[in-house]
């Protein structure tokens, strides 16, 4: 008959008179033990050998156990210190005894929890007594450890169980397999066993010729690491953005798109931000040097926005007591928030009038001339969303945001009343960090003011919120420096090793 090389070797090395352990066969055949075992089972299936198994138990000391062989058990040391302090006569303060015993750290607890159990004395109300009849030299656990250290063996009994519970010894099982030739095996060997040919690569020729039926495939080391493949992959922050978009689309939100360099009119004036608001004059804004101004703004809208700023909206409305200048409104800047998209959409100039109910979102870049550090970038992705409907309430706002954040494992949202010039009521959103449990700020929200909506021609309620995508990504991926992710300083190694977000 024909057999693979390894099986032939094992068959020839095995004995019909006595069972041979796998290790011995491995030595005789110069094959790895696992190959011998595999071959033996193959041969057993064909009835050529019998494989028997024996389970052996070995007991060994743990590191802690070895320490106690040297130093003796903590409870014994405590007992001796107690005796020395005269605790066999009168109770002695625990602190004093522990001090002289030299026990430290976890050893103190170990000593205390075994002391009374083993009859060395009692511990009560911070005082310790010592039983003068106790004999540390006869401590069965101590003796068992010693004999294990000296002779390497130990009878399996109660003491062994106790030592195992205390983590001082380890009991491990090893399985020894032995192989013995069967009669059939002897017969086949007598008749002659040949080595079958083995092949490496499966080739088209092998397949088409039918030769594959007669060959044995050489065994590969299937456990070894293969070469690293750097396949293409989507950027980790982009994955997060896709995930957010999935969630929002699933919640019925439609995506907005629009210019990054835009007139302050759309970025701020339409948001009812007074022109002398510190955020507008402050240099955290990226005003454009070239080009400077937008060509055209819808005239009637400019008029309505100016009136809202100057006079307010509604019968009791009041405006800001701030200057308003159209030239200032036409100045171009990189948008400080993507709410400029919302004002464009709400005004009806982007896709025509939007009728309630409607939900819109964007996950797009905004620009802030702030500090550049591990958690702040000059450019970041803002998640912006709004819901337009008749008679929206603060409760609807809370319900919507709870649902959104729950998708990212952020529960127990708290709403802290806040101030924004363009929303009222306004809330800062706080949530519990999914892993650290800290309360963290996760967004800003509110119901758009009528001074903002009325000039835009919206006559129902709109609630909105925003947060930085990077913040959500750092929360859910655990990234510590945002610059590893975003920008030209990105570390390819970090991106390659980043866990996939889905």
């Amino acid at each position: 008959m024909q057999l693979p090389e390894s099986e032939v070797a094992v068959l020839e090395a095995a004995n019909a008179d006595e069972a041979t352990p796998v290790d011995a066969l491995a030595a005789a055949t110069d094959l790895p033990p696992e190959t011998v075992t595999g071959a033996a089972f193959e041969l057993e299936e064909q009835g050529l050998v019998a494989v028997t198994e024996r389970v052996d138990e070995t007991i060994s000391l743990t590191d802690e156990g070895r320490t106690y062989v040297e130093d003796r058990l903590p409870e014994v040391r405590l007992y001796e210190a107690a005796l020395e302090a005269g605790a066999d006569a009168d109770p002695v303060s625990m602190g004093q005894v522990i001090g002289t015993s030299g026990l430290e750290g976890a050893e103190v607890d170990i000593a205390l929890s075994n002391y009374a159990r083993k009859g060395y004395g009692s511990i009560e109300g911070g005082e310790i007594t010592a039983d003068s009849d106790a004999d540390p030299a006869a401590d069965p656990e101590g003796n068992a450890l010693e004999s294990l250290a000296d002779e390497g063996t130990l009878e399996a009994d109660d003491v062994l169980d106790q030592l195992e519970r205390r983590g001082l010894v380890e009991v491990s099982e090893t399985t020894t397999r032995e192989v013995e030739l069967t009669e059939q095996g002897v017969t086949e060997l007598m008749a002659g066993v040949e080595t079958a040919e083995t092949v490496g690569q499966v080739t088209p020729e092998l397949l088409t010729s039918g030769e594959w039926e007669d060959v044995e495939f050489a065994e590969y080391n299937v456990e070894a690491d293969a070469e690293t493949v750097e396949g293409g992959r989507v950027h980790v922050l982009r994955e997060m953005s896709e995930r957010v978009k999935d969630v929002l689309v699933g919640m019925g939100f439609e995506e907005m798109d629009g210019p990054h360099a835009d007139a302050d009119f759309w970025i701020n004036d339409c948001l009812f931000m007074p022109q002398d608001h510190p955020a507008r004059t402050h240099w955290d804004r990226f005003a454009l040097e070239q080009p400077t101004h937008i060509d055209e703004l819808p005239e009637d809208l400019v008029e309505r926005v100016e009136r809202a700023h100057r006079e307010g909206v509604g019968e009791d409305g009041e405006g800001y007591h701030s200057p308003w200048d159209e030239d200032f409104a036409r100045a171009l800047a990189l948008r400080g928030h993507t709410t400029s998209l919302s004002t464009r959409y709400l005004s009806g100039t982007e896709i025509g009038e939007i009728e309630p109910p409607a939900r819109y979102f964007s996950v797009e870049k905004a620009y802030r001339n702030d500090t550049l550090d591990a958690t702040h970038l000059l450019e970041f992705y803002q998640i912006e969303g709004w819901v337009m409907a008749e008679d929206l309430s603060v409760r609807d706002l809370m319900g919507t945001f709870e649902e959104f954040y729950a998708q990212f494992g952020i529960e127990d949202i708290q709403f802290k009343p806040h101030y924004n010039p363009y929303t009222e009521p306004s809330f800062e959103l706080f949530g519990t960090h999914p892993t650290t449990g800290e309360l963290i700020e996760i967004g800003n929200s509110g119901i758009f003011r009528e001074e903002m909506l009325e000039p835009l021609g919206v006559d129902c309620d709109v609630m909105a919120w925003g947060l930085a995508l990077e913040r959500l990504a750092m929360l859910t991926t655990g990234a510590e420096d945002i610059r590893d992710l975003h920008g030209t300083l990105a570390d390819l190694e970090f991106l390659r090793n980043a866990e996939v977000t889905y």
Partner: protein
Amino acid sequence: MPTVDIDPDELRELTGREEKSDEELQEDLFGLGLEFEGWTDEDEFELEFAPDRLDRLSVEGVARSMRYQYGDSRGVHVPSTNSADWTIEVDESVPDERPYVTGAVIRDVDLDEDGLDSLIQLQEKLHATMGRKRAKGAIGIHDLTMLKGSAATEGSPTIRYVGVEPDEDRFVPLDSDAELTPAEVLEEHQTGREYADLVSEYERYPAIYDDIGLFSFPPVINGRRTEVSTDSRDLFVEMTGTDQWTIDKMLNIVCYALAARGATLEDVRVEYPDSELVRPDLSTKTKRVAHDRIETLLGIDLDPDDVIDLAERSGLDAARSEDEATGNEESSITPLEDRDGLEERDGPVGSDESNAEDAASTGDLVYEVTIPPYRVDVLHPLDVIDDLGRAYGFNDLEPRYPEVGTVGGRHERSRLERAARTQLVGLGFEDMLNFHMIDEEQNYERLGVSPGEEVYGAGEPATIKEPYSEDYTMLRTWTLPSLLQVLENNTHRAYPQHLSEVGFAAELDETENTGVGEGRHVGAVLADHEAGYEDAKARLQALARDFDVALETPATEHPSFISGRAADVVIDGEPVGVVGEIHPKVIVEHDLEVPVAAFEFDLEALR
């Protein structure tokens, strides 16, 4: 966000809650939206606040809000004022840029060190916020006993707000021993230099005189003669600015703070050339708030008595209106009728034709809500509803998911971006995400091109006026410079490095309304030991096939690429990009030691 420092002992005293621990106070303050940030060196609370309630810029205002929160105060309280003795006369010579003034006399103040510190802090915080760093409103507080007013008007002592030539007169400013002219103050005095920009363009400088002479140079600095100390018993508070309403409100906040310390307020006449005011203006305002709107906005049913209770606990007064509701504030534009300030109007100038079309849908109940004179943040009935919500406790509201069905979807551009990115990743590219801001050197010079050059990627830049740093002075006109920078920063990482980016790029474009042509580019670099033209072209071809577009690559010259190994990317007959082997001078410039093949084209071409 701004901060205010509050002495907890003073807070306990002014609220009458001596038993409150520091921790309890901090918790109560958080309820007002004042977040405890830490302790100051003087053992005071440093509190962070949102800049709407500017009446809480000092311990007196914070204490007032807390008394409402505790229920120890209810409703609107307006301190009484004694009739005017003093007059501020506004001269024709006052600079046009800063025409407004207001003032009040405060008598029988008892300022200890803490009280004086609090007053100074209030002044500083008002300057920083409402006063817009003194540009819009500046406060001067003087020791009244040091002023001498002549009887210009019917025996009333008078001070005069005038404009002076920069070097016309002299006075000794605070923190100085020398007599200086206003112009010298701007050059030589520390505070003068700090605020010089506010007035240096003026032809005439603002100045305030009494009978003795010049004693204040607003908005820059007061004179030493009238400096306030803990011995001062009577004060003259004047404010100048660019808007009457703003300085009147700032004055109200200061008056309320001093009245809370037991002082007596006294009116001051302000005589403009053609009108006269009496200040402080402690008149209240009224907002009409519909019951229905309160209920829909908070999402709860409320009993009218509860609404009135919530209002009083917010320091407001509310009464059911006798009139019928005039309806939804959202849909009508009503010209302002009752704006406070200089141009006070006699009666309504606007129309009363407010839209009442859906007023009667859920009842006509309307409240007349009285707003105290220290509030500067109540512009609209909505702001009253926010107060009611805070008093009710927003976090006691039960969230609900709005039962409103809408259809979600991605923007087409965003779907195209995603599809391109997916195909690139399938072709083995690592997706990058780079900054949109860059500088001229990176964007042009290091790639061997110059701004406006007639080659792909070298369009004229949109530039930033005040960049964060010299590395971010413009919007990138193409993506290859960013991708080459990533390669440059990752030479210690394993090769091959095949990077791509589907990202934003922009250049000047006069045909656009904003003057900036914004687009998305598909950029890719192949950096490895064997990278060559064919590798880039092969992947470009694959993309063209994936999106079913016709690709041609006629030879071209591009300074960033090796001559003879560069081609225009022509898709469906339109030149939309470039493909080739990056020129060695560009590779070496980026400290790379491997060949780089690359392409970049407009994403639109795949549509």
